[in-house]
Structure formats: C-alpha cells, structure tokens
C-alpha cells in the first residue's frame, strides 16, 4: 500500500505546530498503525529528520499509553486503541491525517505526545478505596451480587487513554470520572466513601479545565473499552444524592 500521511508536528508546548506531509510506500496491510509510524520514523531518522514522537507502550491495547486522532476520530476508524488498529482498515492511496488529543487539560508535550497528568490528579482526589495494607478482612467476608460485580467490572475496564476527552466536543472528562465512580460505587467496599468521592472527583475535574458534559455520547462511541454511557448517569445520580445529603 502507498499512504500519504499528514502528521501534526509540534516541537514543544509553546510551539504553534503544523501538519507535515510524508509519503510512505510498501505499507503492509498487516502492520499495526504504530508499526507504520515506526517505519516512518526509521525513514525520517535515516534522512536526518527528527522522528515523530508518539506515546505507546504495551501495544496490546491495555496500557492506555497510545492514542492519536486519525482523520478526526479518536483512535481511528475501528473501536479499539491505536496500537490495535491495523493498516488493513485503510486503502491504498489514502491520505491519513494524524493529530494529538486536543484539550487544554492535555497540553501537547511534543508532536503527538500529550500530558494526561490531569487524570492522575482526578484519581488522587478520591478515586480509591481507603484500605491500608494488612487491614483487609477475608475476601469472602463480603459477597458481592454478580450483577453489581459485573457492572463494577465494566466500568473498571477503563484504561485512561483519554480518547473520551479527545472526542468530546466539550473536551469533557466525564466518562473517565464516571467510570471510576461507578466501578467503586457498585462495590460494597466502596460505600463508605461513595458520597464524598464523587464530589471530590468532580471538583478536581472542574479544576483541571475540562469542559462540561452535555450527554452527546461521542465519548462512549470512541471508547476502546466500551465503557457504557450510563456510567455518566450513575455519576449524576450519586452526585445528586451527595448534594442532597449536604456532602461537598
């Protein structure tokens, strides 16, 4: 396959950035999208041009490090992570535009690499169950009804890649926050901190300059792990409950 790439190049956070065009020949349809970028980088290096910086690590769709916007879609045309997207999803002769996640809360560090530290800070605000090592009762002390366990699990599959923010017209991180609120809120172990957790996490989210949620659903549609949109409703429900109890 022959591919024309338009790749976002930006030297640093303060640089304006621009799209640069590169042509690649002999792209195999069995390559992953990131392997295609590897090939581009090998070529650029040998030609003496700075390779394109992009985040990636496990390359098996679970670490959440990779993620670029491909032709306007977060992670590209398939519902998966960028590393699991293969070139067979494109056609010979295609022109592909590659951009970083774009949000104020995710400043570009270089080229396609952005800083997602805001997500860690949202977790720090309350995305945990306080269970110091050694304090735990026997694992079977507290049975969890299977439907609750399954719902918690569905929400817990979030890999915090940030595609939800990238795709949201409001650049909101609601799906990310809601996934954690739902994961912990569905489990009996998560109940003691449930009311305060949601308030603290939402406050932190607002502080990080994410946009507000208008329930458009773009986030869930691009989520490579299929986090359901109803987690957002769960968050809202918990939030209303907390506010009515005067928490926060």
């Amino acid at each position: 396959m022959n591919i024309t790439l338009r790749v976002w190049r930006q030297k640093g956070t303060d640089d304006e950035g621009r799209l640069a065009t590169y042509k690649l020949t002999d792209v195999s349809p069995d390559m992953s999208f990131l392997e295609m970028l590897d090939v581009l980088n090998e070529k650029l290096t040998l030609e003496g041009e700075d390779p394109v910086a992009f985040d990636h690590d496990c390359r098996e769709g679970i670490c959440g490090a990779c993620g670029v916007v491909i032709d306007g879609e977060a992670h590209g045309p398939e519902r998966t992570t960028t590393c699991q997207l293969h070139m067979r999803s494109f056609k010979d002769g295609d022109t592909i535009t590659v951009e970083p996640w774009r949000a104020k809360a995710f400043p570009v560090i270089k080229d396609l690499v952005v800083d997602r530290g805001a997500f860690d800070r949202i977790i720090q605000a309350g995305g945990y169950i306080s269970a110091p090592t050694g304090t735990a009762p026997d694992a079977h002390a507290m049975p969890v009804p299977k439907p609750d366990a399954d719902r918690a699990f569905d929400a817990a599959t979030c890999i915090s890649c940030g595609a939800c923010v990238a795709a949201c017209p409001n650049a909101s991180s609601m799906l990310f926050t809601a996934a954690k609120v739902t994961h912990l809120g569905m489990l009996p172990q998560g109940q003691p901190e449930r009311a305060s957790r949601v308030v603290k996490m939402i406050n932190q989210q607002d502080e990080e300059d994410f946009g507000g949620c208008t329930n458009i659903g773009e986030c869930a549609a691009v989520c490579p792990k299929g986090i359901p949109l109803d987690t957002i409703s769960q968050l809202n429900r918990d939030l209303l409950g907390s506010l009515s109890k005067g928490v926060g």
Partner: protein
Amino acid sequence: MSDNDFFLVGDPIKDEKAPEGPINERWDKRRFSAKLVNPANRRKLSVIIVGTGLAGASAAATLGEAGYNVTSFCYQDSPRRAHSIAAQGGINAAKNYRNDGDSIYRLFYDTVKGGDFRSRESNVYRLAQTSVEIIDQCVAQGVPFAREYGGLLDNRSFGGVQVSRTFYARGQTGQQLLIGAYQALERQVAAGTVKMNTRHEMLELIVVDGKARGIIARDMVTGEIETHFADAVVLASGGYGNVFFLSTNAMGCNVTATWRAHRKGALFANPCYTQIHPTCIPVSGDYQSKLTLMSESLRNDGRIWVPKQHGDTRDPRQIPEDERDYYLERIYPSFGNLVPRDIASRAAKNVCDEGRGVGPGGLGVYLDFADAIQRMGRAAVEAKYGNLFDMYQRITGENPYEVPMRIYPAVHYTMGGLWVDYDLQSTIPGLFVTGEANFSDHGANRLGASALMQGLADGYFVLPNTINDYLAAGPFEKIDESHPEAVAAKEQVTSRIDTLLSIQGSRTVDSFHRELGHIMWEYCGMERNEEGLTKAIERIRELRAEFWRDVKVLGTNDELNQALEKAGRVADFLELGELMCIDALHRRESCGGHFRSESQTEDGEALRHDDEFAYVAAWEFGGEDSKPVLHKEALEYEYVEMKQRSYK
C-alpha cells in the same frame, strides 16, 4: 566448573537472612527478628522506588502509608501504565475456596517443582503463605474479581495444576490488580507521603560508602539530569525480555535500572532463565514491533496440531483428521495440551524445525477450536474465549471461529534478575529489589498466574516487613549533590548521553536492537548449545562495538527524545545479552526454561544435573571488557524431594 575464556569463578555466596527451622515458621521468625522503626522516626527516613508496576506501586503505597517519605519513579506518563497491566490470566492463592485439596503447602510444592528445583524453598514457602493475604487486600481495595451468582469469588485451574486456585478478572487480571495498587499509590500521593515522578527514567545508582543512597534520573520531558537521594533504594523495574527485541513485554520495558545497579556491584542471578510462552500470535513480517500473548487458558479447550506432512500448505480445514499430528496429545498423553509452558513451547519449536510449521515462514502451529465448538456450541466458546478470539481476529484479520488460530512461542518473562537475600536486599546494602526485577521465587521456570502473586507479595507484604531492619540504622549521613559519588554518577550519565548523540552514524537504534534480538532468539532462545552460545557472544561483542561506532540518534538531550531513550536502553541490552549467553553457556544442564541440547534424555526431554548445577548463578560485574565473576549459592531441598519432571 573452573575459570575459562568467558568468566572467572569467585567465592560462593549465601543468603544470610533466611531463618532456619520449620519452613512454616520461618517468615514469622524473620518478621520477629527484623528491627522495627518507631512510627515517629519513619518521617525522617526516605525511600526511592523505581517502577510502578505491581511490585513498585504496592510497595510505594504501603511504605507511604506506614509513614516513610517515598519518592517514586516511572518512565510512563502515569504509574498506572506499568506493564503488569498486561497480565491476562490470573493470580494464584492458596485459599482452598474450592475445597479441592489445595493448601499453602501444595502451592509451595507446585511452585518449587514447577521452578524445576532452582528456587529457594524458604522464599517460595513465604510466597505461598502471603498469597492468601493478597486476595483479601485486593478485594478490600475494590478489585473486581470474577464472581459467581452467589456473590463469592470464582476460581479456575490454570497452567497445568490440578487444583482451582487462580483468581481472575476476565482476561485482564493484571490491569485490575495494578489499578488497585495504583489507586492506593495515588491516595498516598494526595496524602503527601509519596512524591510521584512520571516520565522519569533511572540511569544510574548512587552508592556512597558501600550503601545505595540515591539515583540519577532523566526527566524525559525536559532532559534534565536529576540527582535524588534517599536512605534506601528499591528497584521494581521489571524484567528484561526485551533483550530479544520481539517479546510480549511493553516497548519501553528495559534492563537499565537493574543493569546499572549490577555495574555498581549488585550481583545478577540466573540471567539465562527466560520463559517462553507457548500461545502467542506469530510474527507476520519484518516490521513487527512486538508479540501479543493470548491467555494460556485457550489450551484448556483448544487442540494443538500441525500437518503430518512436511510443507503442507493446504487450507487447514482441508487437511483430513488422519493427516494431522496432535503432537502434544501424542507425546504427553496424560497432560496433553496442558503441559507446562516450557514443554509446550519447545515442542512447537521442534515441529517447526522439522519443517511442519504453518503460516508465514513456517513459524506457527494450529490451535484448533473446531472440536470445542462442536462439543460446547459456538455460544459457549464465545462466552469463554470471545475477547481472545476478537483480539486474534483484530491482529491477524482471520476469523478463529472458522479457521484454526496460529500460535507460536514468544519470550514472556525473565526469571533471572538481581540477586537478593530473604529480605529482598541485593548485595549492595540499602538496595532492595522486588518483583520480576529480582530472581528469587520462580527458579528456572515460572508457573502461570504466579508473577502477579510474587509482585504483590513483595510489594505489599515482604518488603514493608524487611526494609525496616535496614532502615532502623538510619537516617544515614546527609549528602547533597556535591558529594563526589553523586557528581561522578551524574557525570557518567551525561557523558554517555553526549556520546550517543555525537556518534551520528548510519544505523538506527531499532536496527541494532532488532539484530541483537535475532541473535538472542536464535542462540539463547528455546534451545541452546555450546557452539551457538559461543558464536552469539562473539556476535554480540561485534554488534556492541558497531553500535558505539555507528548508531544514529538525532535531536538533543534537552527535549522529549524517544530515540535517545531507546539508545540508552539498547546499549545496556547489548551488555546484558552477553552475560545471558555466558550464563547459558556455563549451565551445561537443561532445567525449566533453559534447555541445553547437549543435556537431554533419550526421548528428548530436559535433563537436569542436580549434582553439578543445583545452585543459583550470581554474576558479579567484572569491569569494562573484563570477565564476569561467578558466585554460586547452593540450593538445598529439605521439604520437596528433587525429581526430574515428567509430564508424560
């Protein structure tokens, strides 16, 4: 074994910390004899932890909670991305919730036997004891393990054991356990007890008066070379499987932290023990950057076969039953497709070497679900393995419900690592090593679902109970950046980076890495022999020389420079690879993941030589371009009788 062309033999080494007495009392004894640190004094003590996988994040969270000042480092943009996240299968624990005869003793026994009698009994017993607490801890943190309709935890049998002791969370147990540890870590970050440094890579260890006192780290965003001090340093930096270039490790996994510590005096134990996982998706082309593992659980229902005829390129569905060779079922009738990983891997290699492999380059065997679909129905297969089938289809573009999957072994885990004593302390006082980065618990082969168990055992329960014994003597003398050792370490790092950037040769870093990987896979992979290993050592030396002459790294140090990061890692792999080959060469026996073709039984099975090789090979760095020095730690088995493994 005596000194030879490749190494010298030094004094034997002994684990001085391991207590004596009945095995089930040893951990209690050690916890009791270890000195404690008064809670008020913990605030005055600091610990550096490198790596935030299961072993690192759990240790940081626990030590932070205990009141120590913890500084944590990871090269990823978030601690939650460490490669523990990719573990699929599960975590073992001797809970005996199934009432199927499991016990701490049986888990201990299985692990010692599975490790082919090359691990320490005391360590393994402690691991089995701790396994029970790990599950409790994780459930309390909100880890959503699979549950049954009654609301209690589900278990499955895994990796060829006959009891169901594996706890799991669909196909992503690693991610769920890591998120639990990560959240506990972030809670401590919020509490101010842990300072987290993301996108930081440790490039050197600072040793002062024989004690580990800090590290040199590079801020991967700004390029700043930073000096950090502490009273103790913990390395939880994972394994070194990426020395093979293609492995199931994440792209960034590297040996730099442990290798730099090794060069500063920490012994490196059993570097040649590598686990090759049998069920990975085969290589599809030269551009391939990594291999993807599919859970071993597939072997519970899938049948492995190759055509009987050499070079049979027919569509597998067209090959009649009597022209197929279900070789595992044929050779190992009692275990069949469920033989341990090393055996399944080597058998796959053998049939491919015979020219009966399938797929591109003949490097693959079929894993066929046709029978399972017929027996259980497609819906049941989909419910059990749907996510794995989807993953396979996504990567290969083939539908495994219709066409048999193709699998091939790939490097997955490294049992070797820095030598540690019972306290997880290396030969450098104050330098502790946890998780895959150390060598301690798996011997020559790791059982399925044991890596997660060891990482969390080390981080949550072992290290926090042993590090006090060392820290009780602190706080140690205050040092600052002007200390000669710190200055020297920093200078070393800077000059190495400058050299890498100034060579401006003609080959990319990846091309060197790929070539090193080929050498390692070919000669130090599933099957090793003297001739191949000798050749490999020679070729690695040449390649290393060429690297330092001809590598091309663009850009500067003062920016995010991924090629520079990689160059430093590959430079260290080029040194480690040689030591791995020397270790493999010196161990003229087959054990666990290490198979020497000169040491096999008449019917081609691994043959151990307990009289000669029942020891841990702990290597001392001999100096630049000098021979490494071998220190042997004798292994004694009081509880499990040493036997040759047999899965026939």
